[in-house]
Each structure stands twice: as C-alpha cells, then as structure tokens.
C-alpha cells in the first residue's frame, strides 16, 4: 500500500520506521501544505496520515472537516500532543487510525497497520456520507410506532401547532369556538396521519404531535410547509370562517420518554420544554420555525424558502419565508 504521511515534524519517520523496513508498503513524507493537492489523485490503494500537532484549533478543525468528507484514501490522525479531546468522534467522521502520544513514541508495527488498512466504515455509513449526519445521542424510534413502548426513551420529531386567532374565535361564542377548535384538531390529525404522526398533547387551540424518527429524513417539514400555504384554503373549506385562520408551527428533533396520550403529565423532557417555548414564545403569527436539528433535513431545493432567525434557547432557528 502507498502510505503518505503529511507532517511538518522532522522526526516523523521514526514513527513509521517499522513499516519502512517491512517493504510491504511504499512510504512517502510530504509537507502539510501539499495535503489537498496530493490527495486529489489518490484512490483505494493509498492511505494517508496527517500530523495535526503543529496546527492551531481553527486550522485543525478545518483539516479534520476536510478529511471527514473524504471517502478515499483512508486516513489516520497523528496527534502526539493530545490535542483531540473526542477521539471517538474522529472515527465517526471516517478516520481509520489515531496515533496518540504513546503510539507516536513506540511507532506503528506492521500488524497494527494491517488492521488499520483493513478497517473500513460501515458501507451503509459510507453510502449515507452525503446525507445529514444525525447526533449520536439519538435513540431512533423507527419509521412507525410498532417498536415504541411506553416508558422508554426515544428520539421523535416534535411538531407544535397552535391557532393564532384565539380571540377572534372566542368572540364567536363558546359553541362555535368549540366546534372550530374540534375541527382544527381533526384537521391536524388528518394531515399528520399519513406521516405516522400522532397528536400527543392537546390544549384548546393546539398541541404537540409526535412522529417516529429513524434518522433518515424529516417528512413533516414538507407537510408543515404545505399546511402554511394551504391555511388560506382551509380557513374557508375546513372551518367555514370568514377570516383567515392562521397557525404557528414549530418542528424539533429530540428525545423524550414515551407515554400514551393522556398519561404524559409526569414526563420531564428538555425537548418538550423547548418545542413549547419555541412555538409559544418565539414563533409569531403564521410562522413555521424549525430548530437546527430539523434544518439538516430540509429537502434539497427548499432551503431558500427558510431564513435564519437567530438563536433561541441555545438552538439555531430557521423560519419559513411566508407568502403575503
């Protein structure tokens, strides 16, 4: 195998002396400045090591991000100063080897490198490399409700939805107001049903819907987008109103213990708090807000229909650009 080591260190060859002696591998040493140019022509028969010891933090981050995007060649990180604090993350990002302080001193043996060379990321992971990377503390609930058990913690897509025109509806009298809010409940239930969404909590004018999440996509984005556009139709068609009923929607992906509807009173969840705060405190009339966890999954082409809306409770928020 062709092994290229990118480093500014004069003593770097000591670490690879055993490999050089074995003559099983072709070793080459290059300065870090040639990393991108050299890597371009490399394929599966090559392997690179990158020495990050001389880099400051921004440069190190930039280099690691660049390497994470490489499918080939395989790469290892040389880190004699122990600058990397989360080694596991390196491997999640595609690294196949990590040479820390001790290993740097002792050098890499032939057997070890054989293991390194044969170590590959899961093919599915490689296939999914271009897709949004999901956070590793997700506890995927799946694509439907079959495996979801009460009392267990899962990652869900949360949708908060609430009618804006509360006072106008209250003015219509209790009977008519109850009818409109009941119709709104059924309308929402109908819209989310095809995506396996379930209304989980409901107050008079809105509530919280849960969608199972398998990490592969976030279909409620498109459904909510359409609901915003269609609200001017639904106001007349579904609710028989002579004014436009608008609603605010917030989407978030996060964890919660699952309990059936009506038995959720004792659940303590940061995600539930966040989605309610986002929907009730941040979102304005007619808004459709999504957290950073959701925005990774905006369907390609629809990104330009969302604008950055700053941060709220330490989460980056995007808002749909609304039609007038």
């Amino acid at each position, binding site marked *: 195998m062709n092994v290229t080591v990118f480093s500014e260190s004069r003593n770097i060859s000591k670490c690879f002396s055993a490999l050089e002696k074995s003559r099983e591998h072709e070793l080459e040493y290059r300065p870090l400045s040639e990393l991108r140019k050299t890597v371009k022509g490399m394929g599966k028969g090559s392997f690179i090591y990158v020495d990050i010891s001389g880099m400051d933090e921004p440069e190190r981050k930039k280099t690691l991000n660049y390497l994470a995007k490489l499918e080939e060649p395989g790469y290892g990180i040389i880190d004699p100063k122990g600058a990397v604090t989360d080694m596991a993350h390196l491997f999640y990002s595609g690294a196949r080897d990590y040479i820390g302080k001790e290993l740097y001193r002792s050098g890499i043996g032939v057997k070890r490198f054989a293991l390194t060379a044969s170590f590959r990321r899961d093919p599915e992971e490689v296939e999914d490399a271009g897709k949004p990377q999901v956070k590793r503390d997700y506890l995927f609930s799946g694509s439907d409700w079959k495996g979801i058990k009460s009392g267990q913690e899962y990652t869900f897509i949360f949708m908060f939805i609430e009618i804006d025109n509360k006072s106008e509806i209250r003015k219509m009298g209790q009977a008519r107001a109850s009818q409109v809010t009941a119709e709104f409940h059924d309308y929402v239930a109908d819209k989310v049903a095809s995506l396996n969404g379930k209304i989980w909590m409901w107050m008079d004018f809105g509530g919280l819907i849960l969608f199972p999440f398998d990490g592969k996509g976030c279909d409620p984005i498109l459904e909510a987008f359409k609901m915003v556009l269609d609200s001017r139709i639904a106001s007349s068609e579904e609710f028989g109103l002579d004014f436009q009923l608008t609603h605010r929607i917030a989407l978030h992906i996060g964890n919660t213990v699952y309990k059936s509807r009506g038995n959720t009173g004792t659940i303590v969840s940061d995600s539930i708090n966040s989605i309610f705060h986002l929907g009730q405190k941040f979102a304005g009339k007619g808004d459709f807000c999504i957290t950073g966890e959701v925005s990774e999954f905006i369907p390609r082409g*629809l990104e330009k229909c969302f604008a950055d809306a700053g941060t709220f409770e330490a989460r980056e928020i995007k808002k749909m650009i609304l*039609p007038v």
Partner: protein
Amino acid sequence: MQIRSAMTNLAIKALSESLNVDVMTVIAEKLMHNYDLYQRTGYPSNIPIQKIDAAKQIVKDIKQQDLFLDLINLLILFHTEGHMGRKYQIQHLKAIIRDVQEAGMIYDQINRTFVENSDFKKTRNWGVLREGQEYIQAFLRLDIVGNTKLVKKYPEDIIQATYADLRDIVKRSIDAREGRIWNWEGDGGLVAFYYGNKNFSAVTSGMEIVHDIFIYNQVACRLDNPLGVRIAVHSGLCEYTANEEDLKKRDVIKKLVDIEAKYTNPNSLSISSVVRNSLDKQLSSHFVPVNGGKGNDIFNYQLRWVQ
C-alpha cells in the same frame, strides 16, 4: 344506477300513500313534458284514476325515461320544503333514500340532487348528467407554459414523467373535491365540477394546485427551470356532452380558454367575476384584479412573497 324492484315498489307506495292523484300528476308533469296520466293509464277521462294505478303508471314511465332519481329528488323537495306553500309528508322516504345510497349514490344537499358516491364509482357525469341537458357547472382549465419548447428540449421520458407528476398533483386536488377530469392532453386539461359548492371547489382546487406546483418546483421538478402552469376557473350554464369537440364550442368553455390564455401568468390562477362573486370574503380577498381591473373582470391568485 340500477333500480331494483324493491326500490320501485317503495316509490309506488310512497306516491300512493302520501299524495293524491292531482299532486302525483304535478310531479309527473314536472319530470315528463306534456304528460297525460289518463292517456298513459287508459282510464276514461270521466272516471277518477285510483291512487295506486296512478302511482304505478307514473313510476313505470319515470323508470323508462331514466328519471327515477329525479323523482326521488322531487319527493325530497316536496317533503322538506313543500310545493305551492304546502308541505307533504312522504311515506317511506327514509327507506327509499337508504336504498338509493346503497345503490352507490349520495345526496348533494347544496344542489338537492343525488350524485354517484365516488367511493364506489367515479364517472365523467357523476352518474346523473344527461347528454343534451343544461347544467350549471364550474370548470377549471390548466395549460403547461411553453409545452412545444419543453418537448423539443427534453427527452421524452423526462417530459412524460413531468407531465405525469402534474396530473398526479391535479388529480389529488380535484378528487378531494369531487371534480372530474373531462379532458387531458398531456400538456394540460379541463376539469369539471358539479357536486356541492362547485365554484368554491374549483377555486380551492386551483389554489391548492398553485401551492403544490410551487413545492414541486422547489423539490422535485426534473426540468432546468420551474414547470410553468396557467390555471383558470369559470362557471356557467353548460349543455352536457361527452363529445370533447362539441364541448369546446360551449360559451362557458370558450370564455374559460380566453381567461387562461390571455389573463393568466405562469403558476397563477385566474377566475372570472362570476366565480369570484360566489366566494366568501376570506377566500376572495386573496384574489386581485388583473391589470388593475381595467378592461376585464378577471381576478388572479398567485403566491407572493415578502421581498
């Protein structure tokens, strides 16, 4: 719709047990021009016709002329609203309606007529429109902008797939509102609405199609540029025909084509003032006069964004 003998017998009982011969004759004359009950039953003109004989003859003739549902519609009207200021309690009406519904029809409260239940059957004429008869209908027309150029520019599979996508969008929207595609030529088509509040259904279908095409163009369109579609809605009295060439000659269709071709921008919906005037305030508020309202009575809807 197939009229089973049990349903026929119920109708005969309903007439004979609820109405006298004079009122039965009024109903028969409403449905059958120049109807002469004495001549049909063979009774001498100086002898009163028995109620049961009158009922049997009227129902028989109505069935022969394929007017059975019209008879039931009239009976419902006599029962609910009366005739000439007087209400009539029509016996067995609930059972008749149940039988008609079991035969695949539903009652359209707004138009006071039975139409086919699309859960069971979906035909071009809703199971009730008859060739040569006039009905008030709403129509929606769609046309793909620059069809000829698109066909020249893109391979056939791309064009076919794109046009199939459009048809799916249209079908999803109109099916939910009991619209029927009367004509589809690949690059667009004509949709008719008869059931319920037809103008409202045609307009909301058109608005939803505008929304769906917007989303389609962002996330799924196979073309280099957004797919452009012009949509128009107009309504009026139209003589029913299954012949597409004859249909094009109808005034309401000619005006519809005119609205679509002359007053509609790509990916927008234009409607006539007749249609707009029938909409509620909320829905009509989303339409603006075309050309500022000068020289025409057309109103347009499109998605507009904050700049």
